[in-house]
């Protein structure tokens, strides 16, 4: 199966490693990934600020860019949610029936964990990440898309990981797009409480499926010199255990089998 990577504008410009991690991960699982180079932004920042007219050209561009794909995968619950739930609204606003039809005919969009668990049918992607981690389920993944425990089931299968439960996990971190600027004081109050919960877990890494939320909480954690860093789920799942060609370590830790995803064939289009 060939999927189009919708890397999202924020990852494109600020966090390209997340996009690279998705490529690494999907290829490892035998998926052919393309990056439709005409893509830019789904238009969510405009829609959520009330600028529907300004979102129309972005929608046109999005539909053109991904027209040839069988499916779209995005490492962002928020952007996947926007495509799924807001594009129709924007199309209707445009008054162009062709655009409405375009939205209806667009390829299905999956948030990364939906694609892994539902389409590929894997939870163990062969990842290795020997760190103490806590997971924040971002609001749009959780409530707009309803990804449920897919991310956690993926994380639980990661070798070496020590997963800590995050208190008040379901509560919003306070990012909220332009909310973070328009209502900065409230946004920061919310974010500080999230950061406090994160720190209480003793985790070294805060993981989530949306870099925009992580940028906000990570910005607070960094300012606090908290010793906690943030990381996109895709980057955790892309990591694998290096193969140690044992020369002297006969009696030490047994060399692991090279990581390969169990539950799905390693190569050749698992679906």
């Amino acid at each position: 199966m060939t999927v189009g990577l919708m890397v999202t504008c924020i990852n494109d410009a600020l966090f390209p490693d997340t996009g690279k991690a998705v490529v690494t991960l999907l290829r490892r699982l035998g998926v052919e990934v393309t990056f439709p180079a005409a893509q830019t932004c789904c238009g969510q920042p405009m829609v959520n600020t009330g600028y529907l007219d300004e979102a129309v050209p972005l929608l046109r561009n999005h539909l053109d860019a991904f027209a040839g794909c069988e499916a779209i995968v995005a490492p962002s619950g928020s952007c996947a949610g926007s495509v799924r739930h807001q594009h129709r609204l924007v199309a209707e606003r445009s008054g162009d029936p062709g655009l409405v039809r375009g939205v209806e005919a667009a390829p299905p969009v999956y948030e990364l964990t939906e694609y892994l668990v539902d389409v590929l049918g894997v939870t163990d992607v062969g990842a290795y990440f020997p760190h103490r981690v806590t997971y924040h389920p971002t609001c749009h993944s959780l409530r707009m898309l309803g990804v449920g425990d897919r991310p956690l089931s993926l994380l639980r299968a990661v070798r070496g990981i020590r997963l800590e439960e995050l208190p008040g996990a379901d509560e919003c971190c306070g990012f909220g797009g332009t909310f973070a600027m328009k209502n900065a004081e409230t946004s920061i109050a919310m974010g500080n409480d999230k950061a406090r919960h994160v720190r209480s877990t003793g985790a070294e890494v805060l993981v989530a499926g949306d870099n925009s939320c992580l940028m906000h909480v990570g910005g607070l954690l960094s300012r606090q010199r908290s010793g906690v860093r943030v990381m996109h789920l895709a980057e955790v799942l892309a990591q694998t255990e290096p193969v140690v060609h044992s020369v002297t370590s006969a009696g030490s830790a047994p060399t692991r089998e090279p990581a390969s995803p169990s539950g799905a064939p390693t190569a050749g289009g698992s679906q």
Partner: protein
Amino acid sequence: MTATFVGMPAFPTAAKAALADTQLRRNLAHATGTIRTKRAGVVGEVDDWEELRLAGAAIKDRVLRHLPHYLEQLETSLQAAGATVHWARDADEANQIVVGIAQEHEAREVVKVKSMATQEIGLNEALEAAGIDAWETDLAELIVQLGDDLPSHILVPAIHRNRAEIREIFLREMGTAGRAAPEGLTDEPRQLAAAARAHLREKFLRAKVAVSGANFAVAETGTLTVVESEGNGRMCLTLPEVLVSVVGIEKVLPTFQDLDVMLQLLPRSSTGERMNPYTSTWSGVTPGDGPQEMHVVLLDNGRTNVLADEVGRQALRCIRCSACLNVCPVYERTGGHAYGSVYPGPIGAILTPMLRGVGHDAQTDSLPYASSLCGACFEVCPVRIDIPEVLVHLRSEVVDAHKAAPGLPSVQDMAMKAASWTLSSSARTGAAEKLSGLGGRLLNRFGGHGAPGGAPMLGALPGPASAWADSRDVPIPAPESFRAWWGRTDGGRRDAAPPGHAQGGPTQGGTAQGGTAQGGTAQGGTAQGGTAQGGTTQGGTTQGGTDGRGAGR
């Protein structure tokens, strides 16, 4: 006692003050946290909760589709049951009607059942202007009224007060409004309730006229319903001679049977109780029993405007349970006053702008933006009001209203236009990223580690960026965008693996990572071979992210 929301600043300003009120923060976090847990418990034990929600929404939608029909049916039923029906287009009309009835009976005071509709229209102030005292009899409303305060929650208007503050208000103010608080009153809840009971009892027994709202009005039978927890409502509804009920036109239900659904949804959602303690239903006048004169004021006051809004009309399903307030992370931190309306929280952020209309004042226009769109409100709403959807819709109405107004476009208008222009073309986007990447390369030498992937971040910044950077470090743009990387490396295929490495492919996870993330140099080598331990954790895991940044150097 005429505290009013008029003249409140816009939400961000009001919120800033509220966020600094440490006692408010403590009180609200405790109260909303408690009620949230309680609600989740009793909702979780209902197997068909989702079906109940769907039924509640369907009943309300049917009412809204055929509102004129059900209202006329309600009027006929009420009249047949001996009640007098009044129609009020707005707050002034409704207030005049109620004041007129009180004056007709030469009443100097009225007792009140807690009612959002009468708060919305400012009835207490209208009565006061006519020389008539309006006594709130709900405990929390009494606290607000005695404290010359404003309500900050739909269900628990004094939620921002703790018991020490309540004790002080009772000791200070009760004597000025009637029976004083007993000496030696402590802040023990039982004692506070007893003081309120004694204070209110003489008012119940003395008043000739009572004013209520209604949670539901059944069109078929002309039955009004009040749902309350303290018995004060029952007192007001049964003891006085005259009862006036101010009822929003969206409160109508087609049949008595529909109460079955609503009376399951409401208490579990609002107080976290399985069953409501005092549910009063009455159908007109019963000779010799209860009030012998009954008036019902059917209130529009902007509701038909809401009904005309195809997206926003779902807000009229609201049964005022306040579950959305209790679960809202914004409300929990700012409290209700910051919303500048008797309807605070998520439901207030959509209802208030629709009742008042947008594009007229900055305070109202700020309300649809007073949300992070986290969606927790929609999840708990017993009648499935998609509050985030309506918030986004109202934001577009605010923007449209401002665009249509004369004058220069705002900074935000221009920024969005510019962003739209840039982002509607991948060539322009790529060019902008090149520029930001250049900046990123320069900035990369500063900063700590905090951004996703452990990338460097910037500290405090001047100007508008300070809204972000005052408390949050700022991510530095990647020196090379994903787009540029894909183009340069053909999606990571061109410089995929470190030189000399067997392209074994699928098995070598570390390889793939090294290759993609860093364009295969010495780093990949470390991860691969030699160093047994340090290399394992470093190269294979944490490095990928951090070092990817250096790739474009």
